Protein backbone atom coordinates (compact mmCIF):
# COMPACT_ATOMS: atom_id res chain seq x y z
CA UNK A 1 0.00 0.00 0.00
CA UNK A 2 1.58 3.25 -1.05
CA UNK A 3 1.89 6.04 1.48
CA UNK A 4 -0.73 8.75 1.59
CA UNK A 5 0.65 12.21 1.20
CA UNK A 6 -0.48 15.42 2.83
CA UNK A 7 0.15 17.83 -0.01
CA UNK A 8 -0.25 20.97 2.02
CA UNK A 9 2.46 19.80 4.40
CA UNK A 10 4.96 19.17 1.65
CA UNK A 11 3.91 22.21 -0.37
CA UNK A 12 6.72 24.39 0.96
CA UNK A 13 9.71 22.37 -0.25
CA UNK A 14 7.76 21.29 -3.30
CA UNK A 15 7.18 24.86 -4.43
CA UNK A 16 10.89 25.57 -4.06
CA UNK A 17 11.87 22.49 -6.02
CA UNK A 18 9.43 23.29 -8.81
CA UNK A 19 10.58 26.89 -8.95
CA UNK A 20 14.12 25.61 -9.24
CA UNK A 21 13.26 23.53 -12.26
CA UNK A 22 11.26 26.38 -13.76
CA UNK A 23 14.16 28.78 -13.37
CA UNK A 24 16.49 26.29 -15.01
CA UNK A 25 14.19 25.68 -17.93
CA UNK A 26 13.42 29.34 -18.51
CA UNK A 27 17.07 30.17 -18.38
CA UNK A 28 17.87 27.43 -20.85
CA UNK A 29 15.19 28.44 -23.33
CA UNK A 30 15.44 32.19 -23.03
CA UNK A 31 19.14 32.14 -23.71
CA UNK A 32 22.15 33.64 -22.08
CA UNK A 33 21.12 35.77 -19.11
CA UNK A 34 23.45 38.69 -19.62
CA UNK A 35 22.13 39.13 -23.12
CA UNK A 36 19.08 40.74 -21.60
CA UNK A 37 19.18 43.82 -19.50
CA UNK A 38 20.43 42.93 -16.06
CA UNK A 39 19.27 39.35 -16.27
CA UNK A 40 17.13 39.74 -13.19
CA UNK A 41 14.45 37.33 -14.23
CA UNK A 42 15.82 34.27 -12.41
CA UNK A 43 16.37 36.28 -9.24
CA UNK A 44 12.83 37.64 -9.42
CA UNK A 45 11.46 34.17 -9.96
CA UNK A 46 13.46 32.92 -7.01
CA UNK A 47 12.08 35.57 -4.73
CA UNK A 48 8.63 34.82 -6.05
CA UNK A 49 9.19 31.12 -5.40
CA UNK A 50 10.27 31.56 -1.80
CA UNK A 51 7.34 33.88 -1.24
CA UNK A 52 5.13 31.18 -2.69
CA UNK A 53 6.66 28.65 -0.34
CA UNK A 54 5.92 30.96 2.56
CA UNK A 55 2.16 30.79 1.93
CA UNK A 56 1.58 27.13 2.83
CA UNK A 57 4.04 27.57 5.67
CA UNK A 58 2.00 30.43 7.06
CA UNK A 59 -1.21 28.41 6.70
CA UNK A 60 0.24 25.59 8.76
CA UNK A 61 1.25 27.64 11.79
CA UNK A 62 0.05 26.15 15.04
CA UNK A 63 -0.79 22.80 13.49
CA UNK A 64 1.05 19.53 13.46
CA UNK A 65 0.90 17.69 10.16
CA UNK A 66 2.60 14.35 9.73
CA UNK A 67 2.93 12.56 6.43
CA UNK A 68 4.95 9.80 4.79
CA UNK A 69 4.14 7.55 7.70
CA UNK A 70 5.32 3.97 7.83
CA UNK A 71 3.54 2.74 10.91
CA UNK A 72 0.75 0.18 10.77
CA UNK A 73 -2.31 1.68 9.09
CA UNK A 74 -0.42 4.75 7.97
CA UNK A 75 0.24 5.91 11.53
CA UNK A 76 3.37 7.02 13.34
CA UNK A 77 6.30 7.01 12.93
CA UNK A 78 6.37 9.46 10.07
CA UNK A 79 9.20 10.74 7.93
CA UNK A 80 7.90 14.22 7.41
CA UNK A 81 6.40 16.31 10.18
CA UNK A 82 5.47 19.95 9.96
CA UNK A 83 5.05 21.58 13.35
CA UNK A 84 5.99 24.93 14.81
CA UNK A 85 9.58 23.86 15.21
CA UNK A 86 9.75 23.04 11.51
CA UNK A 87 8.03 26.25 10.55
CA UNK A 88 10.44 28.44 12.47
CA UNK A 89 13.26 26.99 10.42
CA UNK A 90 11.24 27.27 7.26
CA UNK A 91 10.90 30.94 8.02
CA UNK A 92 14.66 31.25 8.43
CA UNK A 93 15.27 29.35 5.20
CA UNK A 94 12.69 31.32 3.25
CA UNK A 95 13.92 34.65 4.51
CA UNK A 96 17.57 33.72 4.07
CA UNK A 97 17.11 32.33 0.58
CA UNK A 98 15.13 35.34 -0.55
CA UNK A 99 17.75 37.76 0.73
CA UNK A 100 20.60 35.73 -0.75
CA UNK A 101 18.83 35.64 -4.10
CA UNK A 102 18.60 39.42 -4.00
CA UNK A 103 22.26 39.66 -3.05
CA UNK A 104 23.12 37.38 -5.92
CA UNK A 105 22.10 40.09 -8.34
CA UNK A 106 25.14 42.07 -7.24
CA UNK A 107 27.41 39.17 -8.16
CA UNK A 108 25.62 38.76 -11.45
CA UNK A 109 26.07 42.36 -12.44
CA UNK A 110 29.70 41.78 -11.82
CA UNK A 111 29.22 39.41 -14.72
CA UNK A 112 31.10 36.46 -13.39
CA UNK A 113 28.28 34.24 -12.24
CA UNK A 114 25.75 32.54 -14.50
CA UNK A 115 22.46 33.73 -13.12
CA UNK A 116 20.03 30.96 -14.02
CA UNK A 117 22.15 28.12 -12.73
CA UNK A 118 23.02 30.08 -9.64
CA UNK A 119 19.37 30.54 -8.78
CA UNK A 120 18.65 26.91 -9.54
CA UNK A 121 21.37 25.73 -7.20
CA UNK A 122 20.25 28.15 -4.53
CA UNK A 123 16.68 26.90 -4.72
CA UNK A 124 17.72 23.24 -4.71
CA UNK A 125 19.83 23.80 -1.66
CA UNK A 126 16.98 25.64 0.03
CA UNK A 127 14.65 22.75 -0.79
CA UNK A 128 17.00 20.51 1.12
CA UNK A 129 17.12 22.95 4.00
CA UNK A 130 13.34 22.99 4.23
CA UNK A 131 13.12 19.24 4.01
CA UNK A 132 15.65 18.66 6.73
CA UNK A 133 13.65 20.73 9.18
CA UNK A 134 10.64 18.52 8.56
CA UNK A 135 12.46 15.20 8.43
CA UNK A 136 11.98 12.86 11.34
CA UNK A 137 14.04 9.91 10.19
CA UNK A 138 17.74 9.66 9.64
CA UNK A 139 17.54 8.57 6.01
CA UNK A 140 15.58 11.63 4.97
CA UNK A 141 17.70 13.79 7.23
CA UNK A 142 20.96 12.63 5.71
CA UNK A 143 19.71 12.88 2.16
CA UNK A 144 18.29 16.34 2.81
CA UNK A 145 21.53 17.45 4.42
CA UNK A 146 23.33 16.40 1.27
CA UNK A 147 20.81 18.30 -0.82
CA UNK A 148 21.75 21.37 1.18
CA UNK A 149 25.47 20.84 0.79
CA UNK A 150 25.92 19.58 -2.73
CA UNK A 151 24.55 22.63 -4.58
CA UNK A 152 26.43 24.78 -2.09
CA UNK A 153 29.74 23.27 -3.26
CA UNK A 154 28.91 24.23 -6.79
CA UNK A 155 27.78 27.70 -5.70
CA UNK A 156 31.06 28.24 -3.89
CA UNK A 157 32.98 27.56 -7.07
CA UNK A 158 30.69 29.60 -9.22
CA UNK A 159 32.82 32.62 -9.90
CA UNK A 160 34.32 32.66 -13.28
CA UNK A 161 38.06 32.96 -13.60
CA UNK A 162 38.78 33.31 -9.91
CA UNK A 163 41.21 30.66 -8.68
CA UNK A 164 40.25 31.44 -5.11
CA UNK A 165 36.67 30.52 -5.79
CA UNK A 166 37.75 27.11 -7.07
CA UNK A 167 39.96 26.66 -4.05
CA UNK A 168 37.08 27.54 -1.77
CA UNK A 169 34.88 24.99 -3.49
CA UNK A 170 37.34 22.14 -3.22
CA UNK A 171 38.12 22.77 0.44
CA UNK A 172 34.47 23.05 1.33
CA UNK A 173 33.69 19.93 -0.66
CA UNK A 174 36.36 17.72 0.85
CA UNK A 175 35.69 18.75 4.42
CA UNK A 176 32.00 18.29 3.96
CA UNK A 177 32.09 14.83 2.39
CA UNK A 178 34.52 13.63 5.02
CA UNK A 179 32.25 14.90 7.75
CA UNK A 180 29.29 13.24 6.11
CA UNK A 181 31.13 9.92 6.09
CA UNK A 182 31.99 10.25 9.77
CA UNK A 183 28.45 11.17 10.66
CA UNK A 184 27.07 8.25 8.67
CA UNK A 185 29.33 5.86 10.56
CA UNK A 186 27.83 7.15 13.77
CA UNK A 187 24.32 6.92 12.39
CA UNK A 188 24.86 3.33 11.27
CA UNK A 189 25.94 2.33 14.76
CA UNK A 190 22.95 4.01 16.35
CA UNK A 191 20.72 2.25 13.85
CA UNK A 192 22.29 -1.06 14.77
CA UNK A 193 21.63 -0.55 18.46
CA UNK A 194 18.12 0.82 18.24
CA UNK A 195 16.91 -1.01 15.16
CA UNK A 196 15.23 2.01 13.69
CA UNK A 197 16.09 5.14 11.78
CA UNK A 198 13.07 7.07 13.00
CA UNK A 199 13.96 9.61 15.62
CA UNK A 200 11.21 9.15 18.16
CA UNK A 201 11.23 5.35 18.23
CA UNK A 202 15.01 5.62 18.44
CA UNK A 203 14.76 7.77 21.54
CA UNK A 204 12.23 5.41 23.07
CA UNK A 205 14.47 2.42 22.39
CA UNK A 206 17.46 4.09 23.99
CA UNK A 207 15.39 5.14 26.96
CA UNK A 208 14.23 1.58 27.37
CA UNK A 209 17.87 0.56 27.54
CA UNK A 210 18.55 -0.82 24.09
CA UNK A 211 22.05 -2.16 23.99
CA UNK A 212 24.91 -2.48 23.71
CA UNK A 213 25.18 0.96 25.19
CA UNK A 214 28.83 1.51 24.35
CA UNK A 215 28.12 1.12 20.66
CA UNK A 216 25.35 3.67 20.94
CA UNK A 217 27.69 6.05 22.72
CA UNK A 218 30.31 5.61 20.00
CA UNK A 219 27.64 6.23 17.39
CA UNK A 220 26.51 9.37 19.20
CA UNK A 221 30.01 10.76 19.38
CA UNK A 222 30.73 10.11 15.71
CA UNK A 223 27.43 11.69 14.73
CA UNK A 224 28.24 14.79 16.73
CA UNK A 225 31.67 15.03 15.15
CA UNK A 226 30.14 14.82 11.70
CA UNK A 227 27.52 17.45 12.41
CA UNK A 228 30.08 19.64 14.13
CA UNK A 229 31.81 19.91 10.77
CA UNK A 230 28.59 21.12 9.23
CA UNK A 231 28.04 23.84 11.78
CA UNK A 232 31.77 24.60 11.80
CA UNK A 233 32.40 24.01 15.45
CA UNK A 234 36.04 24.19 16.50
CA UNK A 235 38.14 22.08 15.89
CA UNK A 236 36.22 21.31 12.72
CA UNK A 237 36.08 24.85 11.45
CA UNK A 238 39.16 25.14 9.28
CA UNK A 239 37.24 25.33 6.03
CA UNK A 240 35.12 28.29 7.04
CA UNK A 241 37.35 31.32 6.53
CA UNK A 242 38.86 30.09 3.27
CA UNK A 243 35.52 29.15 1.83
CA UNK A 244 33.84 32.40 2.82
CA UNK A 245 36.57 34.55 1.37
CA UNK A 246 36.93 32.53 -1.79
CA UNK A 247 33.28 32.09 -2.61
CA UNK A 248 31.11 34.89 -4.02
CA UNK A 249 29.85 36.97 -1.13
CA UNK A 250 26.24 35.95 -1.60
CA UNK A 251 27.33 32.34 -1.19
CA UNK A 252 29.19 33.21 1.96
CA UNK A 253 26.00 34.78 3.24
CA UNK A 254 24.06 31.66 2.31
CA UNK A 255 26.58 29.39 3.98
CA UNK A 256 26.66 31.41 7.14
CA UNK A 257 22.90 31.54 7.51
CA UNK A 258 20.87 28.93 5.67
CA UNK A 259 23.40 26.15 5.36
CA UNK A 260 24.51 26.64 8.92
CA UNK A 261 20.90 26.65 10.08
CA UNK A 262 20.44 23.33 8.29
CA UNK A 263 23.40 21.94 10.20
CA UNK A 264 21.92 23.12 13.46
CA UNK A 265 18.54 21.65 12.62
CA UNK A 266 20.29 18.37 12.00
CA UNK A 267 21.99 18.67 15.36
CA UNK A 268 18.77 19.55 17.17
CA UNK A 269 16.88 16.73 15.48
CA UNK A 270 19.49 14.07 16.06
CA UNK A 271 20.49 15.10 19.56
CA UNK A 272 17.33 16.69 20.86
CA UNK A 273 14.84 14.30 19.30
CA UNK A 274 16.64 11.05 18.54
CA UNK A 275 19.24 10.89 21.28
CA UNK A 276 17.46 12.90 23.96
CA UNK A 277 17.80 10.20 26.56
CA UNK A 278 21.53 10.20 25.90
CA UNK A 279 21.84 13.84 26.89
CA UNK A 280 24.17 12.99 29.75
CA UNK A 281 26.60 11.59 27.17
CA UNK A 282 26.64 14.38 24.66
CA UNK A 283 25.97 17.43 26.80
CA UNK A 284 29.51 17.72 28.19
CA UNK A 285 31.01 17.08 24.77
CA UNK A 286 28.93 19.76 23.11
CA UNK A 287 29.66 22.12 25.99
CA UNK A 288 33.38 21.78 25.37
CA UNK A 289 32.84 22.24 21.64
CA UNK A 290 30.82 25.37 22.30
CA UNK A 291 33.43 26.88 24.58
CA UNK A 292 36.22 26.16 22.12
CA UNK A 293 34.23 27.37 19.16
CA UNK A 294 33.35 30.76 20.52
CA UNK A 295 36.75 31.39 22.03
CA UNK A 296 38.75 30.44 18.95
CA UNK A 297 36.33 32.22 16.63
CA UNK A 298 36.48 35.44 18.58
CA UNK A 299 40.21 35.42 19.16
CA UNK A 300 40.99 34.83 15.51
CA UNK A 301 38.46 37.41 14.40
CA UNK A 302 40.44 39.96 16.38
CA UNK A 303 43.31 39.88 13.88
CA UNK A 304 41.34 40.16 10.68
CA UNK A 305 41.55 43.16 8.43
CA UNK A 306 39.52 41.62 5.62
CA UNK A 307 35.88 41.93 6.52
CA UNK A 308 34.58 38.76 4.91
CA UNK A 309 37.21 36.82 6.80
CA UNK A 310 36.20 38.71 9.91
CA UNK A 311 32.58 37.80 9.32
CA UNK A 312 33.68 34.21 8.78
CA UNK A 313 35.45 34.00 12.10
CA UNK A 314 32.66 35.87 13.81
CA UNK A 315 30.21 33.34 12.38
CA UNK A 316 32.35 30.61 13.93
CA UNK A 317 32.05 32.42 17.23
CA UNK A 318 28.31 32.82 16.80
CA UNK A 319 28.04 29.09 16.12
CA UNK A 320 29.64 28.64 19.51
CA UNK A 321 26.93 30.75 21.11
CA UNK A 322 24.26 28.74 19.34
CA UNK A 323 25.79 25.54 20.70
CA UNK A 324 25.65 26.79 24.28
CA UNK A 325 22.04 25.78 24.99
CA UNK A 326 22.86 22.23 23.89
CA UNK A 327 24.93 21.93 27.02
CA UNK A 328 21.74 22.45 28.99
CA UNK A 329 19.50 20.44 26.71
CA UNK A 330 18.05 18.24 29.41
CA UNK A 331 16.25 21.29 30.78
CA UNK A 332 13.01 21.61 28.93
CA UNK A 333 12.94 24.25 26.25
CA UNK A 334 16.67 24.90 26.29
CA UNK A 335 17.10 24.04 22.63
CA UNK A 336 14.49 26.65 21.80
CA UNK A 337 17.12 29.18 22.82
CA UNK A 338 19.38 27.88 20.07
CA UNK A 339 16.56 28.30 17.64
CA UNK A 340 15.85 31.79 18.84
CA UNK A 341 19.46 32.79 18.48
CA UNK A 342 19.62 31.24 15.04
CA UNK A 343 16.51 33.08 13.89
CA UNK A 344 17.84 36.40 15.10
CA UNK A 345 21.32 35.76 13.82
CA UNK A 346 19.87 35.01 10.39
CA UNK A 347 18.66 38.47 9.52
CA UNK A 348 21.26 40.37 11.48
CA UNK A 349 24.11 38.54 9.82
CA UNK A 350 22.49 38.76 6.41
CA UNK A 351 22.27 42.49 6.97
CA UNK A 352 26.03 42.71 7.42
CA UNK A 353 26.65 40.54 4.38
CA UNK A 354 24.20 42.56 2.29
CA UNK A 355 26.06 45.79 2.91
CA UNK A 356 29.37 44.05 2.35
CA UNK A 357 28.09 42.84 -1.01
CA UNK A 358 27.26 46.39 -2.04
CA UNK A 359 30.57 47.77 -0.82
CA UNK A 360 32.24 44.92 -2.67
CA UNK A 361 31.10 46.46 -5.95
CA UNK A 362 33.55 49.29 -5.38
CA UNK A 363 36.12 47.53 -3.21
CA UNK A 364 36.48 43.89 -4.18
CA UNK A 365 39.35 43.61 -1.71
CA UNK A 366 36.92 44.05 1.20
CA UNK A 367 39.52 45.57 3.49
CA UNK A 368 38.22 47.12 6.65
CA UNK A 369 39.69 50.47 5.65
CA UNK A 370 37.45 50.40 2.57
CA UNK A 371 34.55 51.06 4.90
CA UNK A 372 36.01 54.27 6.24
CA UNK A 373 33.41 57.00 6.35
CA UNK A 374 30.64 54.90 4.90
CA UNK A 375 28.09 56.54 7.16
CA UNK A 376 28.83 59.93 5.66
CA UNK A 377 29.21 58.82 2.08
CA UNK A 378 26.23 56.52 2.03
CA UNK A 379 24.17 57.09 5.16
CA UNK A 380 21.66 54.35 4.36
CA UNK A 381 24.30 51.70 3.86
CA UNK A 382 26.37 52.94 6.74
CA UNK A 383 23.56 52.96 9.25
CA UNK A 384 22.30 49.58 8.11
CA UNK A 385 25.72 48.04 8.56
CA UNK A 386 26.26 49.86 11.82
CA UNK A 387 23.00 48.54 13.12
CA UNK A 388 23.81 45.01 12.03
CA UNK A 389 27.22 45.14 13.69
CA UNK A 390 25.87 46.54 16.91
CA UNK A 391 23.21 43.83 16.93
CA UNK A 392 25.80 41.14 16.21
CA UNK A 393 27.82 42.46 19.12
CA UNK A 394 24.66 42.32 21.19
CA UNK A 395 24.30 45.94 22.23
CA UNK A 396 21.49 48.45 22.03
CA UNK A 397 20.19 49.89 19.76
CA UNK A 398 20.37 46.41 18.30
CA UNK A 399 18.16 45.25 21.13
CA UNK A 400 17.24 42.09 19.29
CA UNK A 401 20.89 41.02 19.17
CA UNK A 402 21.18 41.72 22.86
CA UNK A 403 18.09 39.66 23.57
CA UNK A 404 19.51 36.79 21.52
CA UNK A 405 22.29 36.64 24.07
CA UNK A 406 19.84 37.02 26.93
CA UNK A 407 17.92 34.03 25.61
CA UNK A 408 21.03 31.89 25.44
CA UNK A 409 22.19 32.96 28.89
CA UNK A 410 18.74 32.17 30.15
CA UNK A 411 19.03 28.62 28.90
CA UNK A 412 22.56 28.02 30.09
CA UNK A 413 22.63 29.74 33.48
CA UNK A 414 22.00 27.07 36.04
CA UNK A 415 22.65 23.81 34.19
CA UNK A 416 25.86 25.06 32.59
CA UNK A 417 26.80 28.22 34.37
CA UNK A 418 30.50 27.90 33.60
CA UNK A 419 29.68 27.92 29.91
CA UNK A 420 27.54 31.01 30.34
CA UNK A 421 30.48 32.71 32.03
CA UNK A 422 32.80 31.71 29.19
CA UNK A 423 30.26 33.13 26.79
CA UNK A 424 30.05 36.35 28.77
CA UNK A 425 33.79 36.78 28.42
CA UNK A 426 33.54 36.02 24.74
CA UNK A 427 30.81 38.55 24.17
CA UNK A 428 33.20 41.15 25.52
CA UNK A 429 36.07 39.96 23.32
CA UNK A 430 33.79 39.99 20.30
CA UNK A 431 33.07 43.65 20.89
CA UNK A 432 36.60 44.62 20.08
CA UNK A 433 36.45 43.70 16.43
CA UNK A 434 32.90 44.86 15.89
CA UNK A 435 33.88 48.16 17.47
CA UNK A 436 36.92 48.40 15.22
CA UNK A 437 34.74 48.02 12.16
CA UNK A 438 32.13 50.38 13.56
CA UNK A 439 34.83 52.94 14.10
CA UNK A 440 35.81 52.81 10.44
CA UNK A 441 32.21 53.33 9.44
CA UNK A 442 31.94 56.55 11.36
CA UNK A 443 35.44 57.85 10.74
CA UNK A 444 35.99 60.78 8.44
CA UNK A 445 37.06 59.86 4.94
CA UNK A 446 38.55 61.80 2.07
CA UNK A 447 37.74 59.72 -0.97
CA UNK A 448 34.25 59.12 -2.21
CA UNK A 449 34.24 55.83 -4.08
CA UNK A 450 31.57 55.04 -6.63
CA UNK A 451 29.31 52.40 -5.20
CA UNK A 452 26.86 50.80 -7.46
CA UNK A 453 23.87 49.72 -5.46
CA UNK A 454 22.18 46.97 -7.47
CA UNK A 455 18.45 47.12 -6.92
CA UNK A 456 18.32 43.62 -5.49
CA UNK A 457 21.15 44.18 -3.05
CA UNK A 458 19.63 47.49 -2.02
CA UNK A 459 16.37 45.75 -1.31
CA UNK A 460 18.22 43.09 0.70
CA UNK A 461 19.84 45.78 2.82
CA UNK A 462 16.50 47.46 3.36
CA UNK A 463 14.67 44.27 4.27
CA UNK A 464 17.25 43.06 6.77
CA UNK A 465 17.60 46.48 8.34
CA UNK A 466 13.85 46.86 8.64
CA UNK A 467 13.54 43.44 10.24
CA UNK A 468 16.26 44.33 12.71
CA UNK A 469 14.65 47.62 13.69
CA UNK A 470 11.11 46.26 13.98
CA UNK A 471 12.18 43.29 16.07
CA UNK A 472 14.34 45.50 18.23
CA UNK A 473 11.36 47.61 19.13
CA UNK A 474 8.94 44.68 19.43
CA UNK A 475 11.14 41.71 20.29
CA UNK A 476 8.20 39.71 21.52
CA UNK A 477 6.89 39.57 17.97
CA UNK A 478 9.76 37.31 17.02
CA UNK A 479 10.82 35.68 20.25
CA UNK A 480 7.46 34.67 21.67
CA UNK A 481 6.46 32.32 18.85
CA UNK A 482 9.99 31.05 18.26
CA UNK A 483 10.69 30.19 21.85
CA UNK A 484 7.30 28.59 22.24
CA UNK A 485 7.81 26.41 19.18
CA UNK A 486 9.95 23.82 20.91
CA UNK A 487 8.90 22.56 24.27
Amino acid at each position, binding site marked *: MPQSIDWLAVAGPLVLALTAVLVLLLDAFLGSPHARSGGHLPAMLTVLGVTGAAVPAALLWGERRATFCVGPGGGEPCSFVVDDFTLVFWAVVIFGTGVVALLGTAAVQEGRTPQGEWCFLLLSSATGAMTIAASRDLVTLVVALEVVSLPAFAMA*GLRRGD*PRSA*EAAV*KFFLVSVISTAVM*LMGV*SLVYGVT*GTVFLEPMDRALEAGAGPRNVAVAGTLLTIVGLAFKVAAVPFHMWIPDTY*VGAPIAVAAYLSVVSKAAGFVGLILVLGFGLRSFASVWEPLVAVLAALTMTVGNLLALWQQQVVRLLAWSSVAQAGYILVPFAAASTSGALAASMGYLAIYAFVNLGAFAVAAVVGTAHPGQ*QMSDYRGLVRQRPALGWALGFALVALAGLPPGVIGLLAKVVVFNAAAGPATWLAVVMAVNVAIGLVYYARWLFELFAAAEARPAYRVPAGAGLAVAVTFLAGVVFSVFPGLLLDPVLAALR
Partner: protein
Amino acid sequence: MPLWWPLLLASLLFAIGVYGVLVRRNAVLVLMGVELMLNAVNINLVAFDAHLRDVLHGGQTFALFIIVIAAAEVGLALAIVLLVFRSHGHIDVDRLRGLADRDPPTEPSGGDGVTAHSALTGPGRTR
Protein backbone atom coordinates in the same frame (compact mmCIF):
# COMPACT_ATOMS: atom_id res chain seq x y z
CA MET B 1 28.39 -16.02 11.31
CA PRO B 2 28.99 -13.81 14.35
CA LEU B 3 27.56 -10.33 13.90
CA TRP B 4 30.84 -8.77 14.86
CA TRP B 5 32.61 -10.07 11.78
CA PRO B 6 31.11 -7.62 9.33
CA LEU B 7 31.21 -4.91 11.99
CA LEU B 8 34.91 -5.47 12.55
CA LEU B 9 35.47 -5.42 8.82
CA ALA B 10 33.59 -2.14 8.61
CA SER B 11 35.59 -0.63 11.47
CA LEU B 12 38.89 -1.55 9.89
CA LEU B 13 37.80 -0.34 6.48
CA PHE B 14 36.65 2.92 8.02
CA ALA B 15 40.01 3.37 9.72
CA ILE B 16 41.82 2.69 6.46
CA GLY B 17 39.64 5.30 4.82
CA VAL B 18 40.51 7.78 7.58
CA TYR B 19 44.16 7.05 7.00
CA GLY B 20 43.75 7.68 3.30
CA VAL B 21 41.96 10.96 3.89
CA LEU B 22 44.64 12.16 6.26
CA VAL B 23 47.66 11.08 4.32
CA ARG B 24 46.83 11.83 0.70
CA ARG B 25 47.54 15.15 -0.96
CA ASN B 26 45.83 14.66 -4.26
CA ALA B 27 42.16 15.61 -3.99
CA VAL B 28 41.03 12.58 -5.99
CA LEU B 29 42.96 10.22 -3.74
CA VAL B 30 41.44 11.90 -0.70
CA LEU B 31 38.09 11.20 -2.24
CA MET B 32 38.97 7.53 -2.56
CA GLY B 33 39.56 7.46 1.15
CA VAL B 34 36.10 8.92 1.64
CA GLU B 35 34.64 6.21 -0.57
CA LEU B 36 36.22 3.58 1.66
CA MET B 37 34.65 5.22 4.69
CA LEU B 38 31.25 5.26 3.03
CA ASN B 39 31.54 1.62 2.11
CA ALA B 40 32.35 0.79 5.69
CA VAL B 41 29.14 2.52 6.69
CA ASN B 42 27.21 0.52 4.14
CA ILE B 43 28.58 -2.78 5.42
CA ASN B 44 27.42 -1.79 8.88
CA LEU B 45 23.99 -0.86 7.63
CA VAL B 46 23.49 -3.99 5.61
CA ALA B 47 24.75 -6.23 8.41
CA PHE B 48 22.47 -4.58 10.95
CA ASP B 49 19.57 -4.78 8.55
CA ALA B 50 20.07 -8.51 8.25
CA HIS B 51 20.54 -8.90 11.97
CA LEU B 52 17.52 -6.86 12.94
CA ARG B 53 15.28 -8.42 10.29
CA ASP B 54 14.15 -4.87 9.71
CA VAL B 55 10.68 -5.01 8.15
CA LEU B 56 11.23 -1.54 6.73
CA HIS B 57 14.60 -2.55 5.34
CA GLY B 58 15.91 0.70 6.73
CA GLY B 59 19.50 -0.44 6.58
CA GLN B 60 19.48 -1.66 3.02
CA THR B 61 17.54 1.32 1.78
CA PHE B 62 19.89 3.64 3.60
CA ALA B 63 22.85 1.86 2.02
CA LEU B 64 21.33 2.26 -1.42
CA PHE B 65 20.75 5.91 -0.90
CA ILE B 66 24.28 6.36 0.36
CA ILE B 67 25.60 4.77 -2.79
CA VAL B 68 23.59 7.23 -4.85
CA ILE B 69 24.76 10.13 -2.72
CA ALA B 70 28.33 9.01 -3.20
CA ALA B 71 27.82 8.89 -6.95
CA ALA B 72 26.38 12.39 -6.98
CA GLU B 73 29.24 13.62 -4.84
CA VAL B 74 31.84 12.11 -7.10
CA GLY B 75 30.17 13.56 -10.16
CA LEU B 76 30.33 17.02 -8.68
CA ALA B 77 33.82 16.32 -7.41
CA LEU B 78 34.98 15.71 -10.94
CA ALA B 79 33.78 19.15 -11.97
CA ILE B 80 35.30 20.86 -8.95
CA VAL B 81 38.60 19.08 -9.29
CA LEU B 82 38.84 20.07 -12.93
CA LEU B 83 37.97 23.64 -12.01
CA VAL B 84 40.82 23.70 -9.52
CA PHE B 85 43.15 22.04 -11.93
CA ARG B 86 42.40 24.59 -14.61
CA SER B 87 42.98 27.52 -12.31
CA HIS B 88 45.89 26.19 -10.29
CA GLY B 89 47.57 23.60 -12.48
CA HIS B 90 47.46 20.95 -9.79
CA ILE B 91 45.00 19.38 -7.36
CA ASP B 92 47.32 19.11 -4.43
CA VAL B 93 45.30 20.01 -1.36
CA ASP B 94 48.40 20.94 0.62
CA ARG B 95 49.49 23.47 -1.93
CA LEU B 96 46.16 25.29 -2.10
CA ARG B 97 47.21 28.23 -0.03
CA GLY B 98 45.72 31.15 -1.95
CA LEU B 99 43.28 31.79 0.85
CA ALA B 100 45.57 31.20 3.78
CA ASP B 101 45.26 33.51 6.73
CA ARG B 102 48.64 35.10 6.53
CA ASP B 103 48.80 35.81 2.82
CA PRO B 104 48.30 39.34 1.59
CA PRO B 105 44.60 39.20 0.94
CA THR B 106 44.29 41.79 -1.81
CA GLU B 107 45.90 39.74 -4.55
CA PRO B 108 43.39 37.31 -5.93
CA SER B 109 45.71 36.05 -8.62
CA GLY B 110 49.03 36.25 -6.82
CA GLY B 111 51.22 33.20 -6.34
CA ASP B 112 49.11 30.41 -7.69
CA GLY B 113 47.71 32.71 -10.31
CA VAL B 114 50.84 32.38 -12.40
CA THR B 115 50.44 28.66 -12.70
CA ALA B 116 46.78 29.28 -13.24
CA HIS B 117 47.42 31.26 -16.32
CA SER B 118 49.86 28.81 -17.78
CA ALA B 119 47.39 26.06 -17.16
CA LEU B 120 44.74 27.93 -19.04
CA THR B 121 46.90 28.53 -22.02
CA GLY B 122 48.51 25.12 -21.87
CA PRO B 123 47.87 22.20 -24.17
CA GLY B 124 44.77 21.27 -22.22
CA ARG B 125 42.76 23.61 -24.36
CA THR B 126 41.45 22.54 -27.65
CA ARG B 127 39.91 25.42 -29.50
